[in-house]
């Protein structure tokens, strides 16, 4: 996938993911403050706009950086800041390369997950986006090809999202609910799943 294809894929995925804003708002309202809907819808709009403004000469890493900046400033919530940092960290793994493939996508996601864990002081099991993201990275890497990788990543993220229901939130707003967070599904993990599901099949 070259830079032009990457732009098209991101544009398609971000446009589609905005359609889940209401679901994400409701999940976040139950566990937090309900602004995840706004983060995703205004963030998606900002990303699509930023990509539209990029010239033809950009690398995939440049695209990821532009997405990071747009997403960070649209609605500077926890998710926005974590995702922006994650995209910047991921973009570093791509350096100047002109193409993205299954392996480099997995590297990107791994760096993204590491960044979130570091900045958020969080790990798998804390009932956050990491519970969907981390298993998705391995699933993508271990798959025979890109198409199978996307399906496997979605399946892994789906499982991760489901499992967040049983967990008690350890990080962010939801952690203030203490025991009462058990039984509710993590909105950030769900957002990541919806994003993966919105990604055009390779």
């Amino acid at each position: 996938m070259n830079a032009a294809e990457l732009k098209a894929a991101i544009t398609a995925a971000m446009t589609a993911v905005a359609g889940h804003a209401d679901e994400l708002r409701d999940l976040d309202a139950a566990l937090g403050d309900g602004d995840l809907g706004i983060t995703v819808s205004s963030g998606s709009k900002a990303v699509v706009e930023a990509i539209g403004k990029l010239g033809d000469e950009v690398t995939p890493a440049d695209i990821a950086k532009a997405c990071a900046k747009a997403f960070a400033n649209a609605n500077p919530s926890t998710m926005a800041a974590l995702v922006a940092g994650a995209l910047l960290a991921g973009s570093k793994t791509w350096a100047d390369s002109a193409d993205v493939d299954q392996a480099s996508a997995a590297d990107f996601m791994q760096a993204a997950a590491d960044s979130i864990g570091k900045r958020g002081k969080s790990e798998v099991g804390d009932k956050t986006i990491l519970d969907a993201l981390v298993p998705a990275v391995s699933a993508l890497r271990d798959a025979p090809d890109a198409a199978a990788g996307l399906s496997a990543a979605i399946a892994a993220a789906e499982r991760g999202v489901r499992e967040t229901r049983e967990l008690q939130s350890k990080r962010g707003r939801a952690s203030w609910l203490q025991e009462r967070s058990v039984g509710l599904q993590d909105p950030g993990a769900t957002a990541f799943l919806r994003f993966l599901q919105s990604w055009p099949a390779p």
Partner: protein
Amino acid sequence: MKKIINDPDRFVDEFIEGILLAHPDKLKAPGDDNRILVRADAPVAGRVGIVTGGGSGHLPLFKGYVGTGLCSGVAIGNVFSSPSSEQVFEATKAVNGGAGVLYLYGNYGGDVLNFDLAADMAELEDIETKTVLGTDDVASQPKERKSDRRGVAGIFFAYKCAGAAAERGDSLDEVAAIAQAAVDNTGTMGIGLSPTILPAAGKPTFELPDGEMEIGIGIHGEPGIHRGALESADEIADRLTGPIFEDLGLASGDRVAVLVNGLGATPLEELYVLYRRVAQIAADAGVTIEKNYVGEYATSLEMAGASISVLKLDDERLALLNAPADSPFFREV
């Protein structure tokens, strides 16, 4: 929706314009972005700057506490959401008088991440920063996890103490230590009686049937530790004050400052009914209220409800509370 607004998306920018029009002698926007406000005389050379910030909708929090003897600057987010790291960084530069900058704000994920990023940017420009988080909401985490609690109205005490320390010329380390000690010795609990409606969303942030109360509610409507039928003012004061006194380990002979804060729609009369009971509770416990504040200090738009904050005092903290301060929203003389 019962709001006096124009375009909901311009709400924040418009009330900031109003503030700047009303108080040009006390506040200024140092650059093109009105979302960053600093005291009119910023930067003050040789003094520690204090930057706060967070979502809008809590006036006088946060921008109300920018002034002499208080914070030096503020970065203002949309309603209930964080300012960006760039805005925090702009505020940092505008208040930097060469003695370092303290970041003092409430413990919310989005704010923490954006202030942390701003601190990285500041470091690149050789501005030293330190961070102290408001973590006073007793209902949000057990005592062992005090540093994970959310920050609510009690941050006022940290502003007042740290601001007075910065004004008298304390070093960044000293100002940060004073702020941290104020936070460590502050506990708050709130009660909500009705939700708020975000101007942009147009619908309530949470559901709370008429006649019910949420004890331990956060200032964005975060759930508390008990929901049930509305009780009497005295019962409510007991429910709020008890856990705070316990958390701070208050005993006979201790001295405190008390803040009874309205969340927005609750009349001042009702806050005094609450204060009446808090004063009784303190007297019964042998605790002396050296200073009290009753009014709206940290609101949630038009939420009905109140919170009680207690700061355990020592001589220094009492002196810092009594030190002069002057902002458009708060004055101590």
